[in-house]
């Protein structure tokens, strides 16, 4: 895809919490299944270490971050790298509206966690579609 023609979906690494895995699963749901033509993901760790190619990519393309916890690592890393952040999502916010979907497990999520990831993915897709339809990328 040429530059500026896809949206980057960047989850936190979230290795310590189920909520981090939910963000990661939601990202793959969007990038691999729901909107594979318009989206890509990249490793957040590349931003943390200041990789030049990745810095250029997040400055040239709209970014959506998905964070698992209030530390908001994905959002803060994109902001600190001057990325084009158009929206940041927090799994805890989605969970607040879907209290029955309490995630459990980190390597392997429980069914509620998978469903929560699907809900987050649908929220992200809504923003992607609005961005695509209303404005140029």
């Amino acid at each position, binding site marked *: 895809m040429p530059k500026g023609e896809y949206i980057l979906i*960047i*989850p*936190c*690494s*979230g*290795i*310590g919490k189920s909520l*981090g895995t939910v963000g*990661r*699963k939601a*990202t*793959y749901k969007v990038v*691999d299944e729901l909107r594979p033509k318009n989206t890509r*993901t*990249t*490793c*957040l*760790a*590349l*931003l*943390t*270490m*200041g*990789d030049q190619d990745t810095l250029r990519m997040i400055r040239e393309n709209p970014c959506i971050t998905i964070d698992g916890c209030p*530390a*908001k*690592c*994905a*959002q*803060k*890393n994109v902001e*600190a790298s001057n990325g084009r952040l158009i929206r940041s999502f927090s799994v805890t916010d989605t969970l607040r509206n879907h209290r029955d979907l309490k995630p459990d497990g*980190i*390597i392997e999520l429980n069914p509620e966690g998978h469903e929560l990831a699907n809900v987050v993915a649908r929220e992200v897709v809504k923003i992607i579609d609005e961005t695509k339809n209303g404005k140029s990328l």
Partner: protein
Amino acid sequence: MTLTKWKVGIVSCSGEEIPEGTISRVATRLVLDKLRPDETVTICLPLFLAGGEGERTFAKLFPTITVDGCEKRCAEIGTEKYSGKPFATVVVTDVLKKCPNLTLKSRDKLSAEEWKFAEKVAEEIAKKVDEASSRQDEQLRSEKQWTEKGKIVVVACAGMDKPLGLVTSASVFKVVEALRPQKAELVCIPPLLAGVSTYSELIKNLPVITVDGCAERCATKLIVKSGGKIRGRIFVPDSAKKHNLLPESASHLGPNGEKLAENIAEEIASMVDSLTQET
């Protein structure tokens, strides 16, 4: 109460973009959850940039093994840049070279073969954990030789502006004056800040227990900055929650604050015993 001397930190790359990143994440969790659950701790790598100074002390507090999916070595480089030099690094692509018939395909749902490979990477990490642990044991033995009397240094934040700061001072006084006067040595923060060499030598050469009254964790940060070897940490807000006790004010403990200080002093004394036995 956190005894830090046996813990080894593991920091995985996030690796969302490639299957090797998912392997590094899964392998790291296998070590944390199954292979070495009592010996290991972790932190999210991007928290080094997003978090505060507290997070950045991680690799100074724990010998750290970084786990990277690819040759870009984000975990290794990021950890060294923000926190401290890792003890060792495991790179998934290096382990993959030992399995020429395997091609990693999935970054989300691992196949049975990919799971087996993640377990192999986890074994490699666990070996490094064991090496780091035995290195720590050697270090502790050398501390024992230096100290002769097996003393442990206790450092309290002594925060004057918060009630729990008063509890930190009260609890360490109970340890050095009453509970373990032969084994525990009090080092106060102002001489360390002023660079008084007697004190800075003590914290560099003896195991240190820090006692912090708030999330700023000044005692811990100062010891890390000064090159001290933290072997145990007490976070008083956790103890207050555990015992359901709070002091009256920043200048007066009151009966509940006194009781809390006694409980914490017992915890510190128990750490001192454990450390002096182990060393």
